[in-house]
């Protein structure tokens, strides 16, 4: 068996294994974040672990403390929503109606205790009217 044969065979095995890995990663439970609906579909008792949740900040729900160290808002998914309390540094552009990802723990009481908020970019870049 020559080196070239070996390289080709090795390349095939490695490509197959990587494809397999990518396929696994693409299926559900190995993700950067969960949606609000997915999270709430779990049994309430199994929600007490660290997770990132994605959703919209609900209208008329955002309350930011004057020193900007904490905030509370409703995280809205496609079907359901969740109350979030967040302690920790907040992004400057946090506003209502924005897509965000919150990192934190679920609580049994139905409250989500977050400690970090990431705002997501808009999916379309529009020119400002200014």
């Amino acid at each position, binding site marked *: 068996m020559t*080196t070239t044969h*070996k*390289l080709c*065979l*090795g390349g095939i*095995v*490695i490509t197959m*294994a*990587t494809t*397999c*890995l990518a396929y*696994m990663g693409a299926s559900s*439970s*190995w993700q950067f974040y969960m949606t609000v609906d997915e999270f709430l579909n779990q049994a309430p008792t199994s929600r007490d*672990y*660290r997770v990132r949740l994605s959703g919209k900040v609900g209208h008329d729900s955002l309350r930011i403390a004057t020193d900007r160290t904490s905030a509370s808002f409703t995280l809205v998914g496609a079907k359901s929503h969740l109350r979030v309390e967040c302690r920790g540094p907040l992004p400057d552009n946090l506003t209502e109606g924005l897509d965000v990802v919150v990192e934190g723990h679920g609580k049994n009481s139905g409250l989500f205790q977050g400690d970090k908020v990431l705002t997501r970019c808009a999916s379309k870049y529009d020119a400002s009217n200014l």
Partner: protein
Amino acid sequence: MLMVTQFYWMVRKDLVSEYRARQVWPAMLMLGTLVSFLFSAQLDGVVEGRSRIVGMLVWLAIYFAGILAMHRTFAMEQEDDCWDALRLYPVTASWIYLAKFTVNFLTLATLQVVVLGLFVVFSNVPLLDHPLRMLTVALLGNVGLTSVGTLLGGVWTENRQGSTMLAFLTLPLAAPVLLAASEATRLVIDQEGGPLWWRWLSFLVVFSIVFVTAGIVLFELLIED
């Protein structure tokens, strides 16, 4: 059959010479012990997220002490030009890789037993409540780290600062294993089985397949002169 016999003797020679000289194991076990001890001592005040930290520290301790060993299995071939003699041996480089892989695997397994034991005693974390799961994670993590370490270890047989270079260059390639193994260990400690745990395990399996294959294919290129 001949291949298997040759393979057996290559592994046996390393183990016997290590048993006689006892160069690598004491240093490696000492380093492993010290690192585990220091990490555990520092963990004393931590309450929240303990399992997450322990998961990572266990694997860091194994990694740093393990690199020392992986370098030594090649460095010891330098004495009396053993390395040249080994390469004159009528086997392909792939078999040399597999033999060195096996020796490194056994060494790292010994180290893992010590490190895991120390962490259980000192850090008070239920690492061994699911012994079978922990064993699976430890074995797969071992195969992943050893496959990378052995592949690159062949590069610095003579270099004096070899073990530093090895630790440095193995890290980017070994980082996925360290992360996956730490995460799987955390899930073992937190007693969360389920799909996530299986996913990390399958990641470790795929990684091992990739790098053992790469080792068998590329080792020849790395050691030829």
